[in-house]
């Protein structure tokens, strides 16, 4: 059974850390203020706008230590990753989840943080939050429904999302555990101890800035490693800033995906608001959802 960490109460503390790429302090400021306005205390770690001059927000040791401290600190009720980038995979195997297992808390992030979602899902069965990170709060982003969905989820409200239907959707209903994240990272963890099992689950994937052929290749990796054949449903999020080669690939990303899953029967929806664009609803990895893909609309609703 999946474990759901306690929802947050006013006065609870959210820790912000950057376990991967560097993030300037001023880019986190709006997020800190918004979280405070939501009624939470905020502790920003040293990796947030720290003294690092490299690609990373700190050395592997510094990033690991900070994440570890926040996992172990019982006064921290949730950990928001400031940003993704690259770096989670370099430290994930060194994290000690002993205390976290006894006292689960919400871990929030996406993109490179996908590794943390899959790793925790596979090893500990604790729900995590695939949701907007600090930069999404900027430029009044904290007012939009996507950042607001994070607020609602943290407070324990049951979420129900709807979006428009796409022509290449495959209609149907599905119920199952939700799992997913960034396509590159899902492909990358295949065969490692952070890999996921997808049988009977609703899988969601999103991607940014990849070549179409490369997305096709990664989808083939998911397929050939047995991650697509026994799904309950498939949710395709944003595939933003996709690139093409000089010799065009000749298919849109939705056509590529529809082709890869054409021999299966489960419902598939394209263009769900999750990903690197502004449209990025908070999704509970590991929680059970109901997906309904109809001719006009798509609904994703948490069932509990």
């Amino acid at each position: 059974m999946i474990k759901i960490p306690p929802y947050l109460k006013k006065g609870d503390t959210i820790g912000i850390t950057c376990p991967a790429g560097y993030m300037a302090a001023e880019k986190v400021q709006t997020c800190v203020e918004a979280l405070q306005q939501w009624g939470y205390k905020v502790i920003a770690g040293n990796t947030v706008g720290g003294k690092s001059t490299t690609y990373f927000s700190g050395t592997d040791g510094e990033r690991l230590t900070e994440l570890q401290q926040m996992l172990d600190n019982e006064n921290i009720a949730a950990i928001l990753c400031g940003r993704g980038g690259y770096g989670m995979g370099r430290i994930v195997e060194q994290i000690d989840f002993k205390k976290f297992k006894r006292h689960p808390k919400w871990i929030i992030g996406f993109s490179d943080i996908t590794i943390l979602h899959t790793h925790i899902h596979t090893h500990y069965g604790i729900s995590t939050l695939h949701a907007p990170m600090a930069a999404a709060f900027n430029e009044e982003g904290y007012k939009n429904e996507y950042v607001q969905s994070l607020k609602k989820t943290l407070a324990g409200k049951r979420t129900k999302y709807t979006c428009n239907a796409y022509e290449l959707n495959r209609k149907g209903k599905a119920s199952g555990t939700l799992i997913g994240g960034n396509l590159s990272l899902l492909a990358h963890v295949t065969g490692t101890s952070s890999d996921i099992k997808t049988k009977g689950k609703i899988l969601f994937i999103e991607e940014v800035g990849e070549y179409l052929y490369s997305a096709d290749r990664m989808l083939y990796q998911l397929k050939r490693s047995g991650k697509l054949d026994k799904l309950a449903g498939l949710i395709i999020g944003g595939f933003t800033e996709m690139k093409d080669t000089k010799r065009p690939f000749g298919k849109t990303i939705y056509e590529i995906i529809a082709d890869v899953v054409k021999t299966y029967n489960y419902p598939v929806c394209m263009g769900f608001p999750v990903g690197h664009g502004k449209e990025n609803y908070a999704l509970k990895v590991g929680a059970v959802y109901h997906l309904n893909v109809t001719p006009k609309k798509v609904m994703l609703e948490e069932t509990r």
Partner: protein
Amino acid sequence: MNRKHFLSSLFTTGISVKALAATLHNPDPSIRIPQHLKPGDAVAITAPAGHITVEELQPAIKQIESWGLKIRLGDTIGKKDFSFGGTDAERAADFQRMLDDPAVKAIMCARGGYGSIRIIDQLNFSKFLIKPKWIIGFSDITVMHCHIGSNYKVATIHSKMCNSFPEDWSKAEPLQRDTILSIKDALTGVKMKYNALPHEKNRHGIIEGTLTGGNLKIIENLAGSKSEIKTAGKILFVEDTGEYLYSIDRMFWNLQRTGKLSQLKALIIGGFRIKPDDPGEEFGRTLYDIVWEKVKTYNYPVCFDFPVGHQRNNYALKCGVLHRLSVTANGVELLEV
């Protein structure tokens, strides 16, 4: 006794592979070496991945014919389905025909690009297994090397492809000729021997092991699938092109985390054409740092800048074949045993 014939005669008479282990000092006696080519043998050219025109093949055809070999052009040559050399079905059918045609002694992939993964599961290797033949290529063709090496244990040739043959042989640089002629040597049974310069980051040692490897991105892409590369007890070589340093780091973590580095006999780092970091996203680690970080706890030899990869300096390597690698202060030598 010629070992190759010795082996094939044993296979046809059905003597168990295990029985051979004691008689041959080969760490993996079940590896099968296709017959080497004789004058008059046919080399088939097909495009399992990217599109190529007949005109683009002319230098390769001319050169291979000058080796006394015949050329059979596949139906996919000149075919085009956007970036692919024909539809998946066309590319699979073309490759299949060549696998099944007993007159074809070697299949040279015209070029890489992208697409092998889309057809590999549709190929039937049963006739190929009765009488193995050489499969030649690199980059995207790493799919074939890994799939065949892991599932069928037949040796393959990792080398330049048709799109790398010089247009005018008489004006080609010595290096270009050398690398192309290394394909001929590999096909005709000349024992391979390569040297590389000493490198301050190398880890010294002399070992023997079966050679395996290819494009790093493709090796990562095959993880978790039935084409996944097996590296335990082997000499692994990797190369890549056009990747950011962070991405190379991530791929080496994939090798590490999928257990592909812990039981190696040796690691050969070929050419890596690195995509420059975006401004403000400087990775701050070199390729050497990235590799060393992953292999520092092991003891096997490691060498850098080996002449294999997306570069002129790309020699034919026999995957699945036993080699001796010597990494010393004097340089690197890779010798087919």
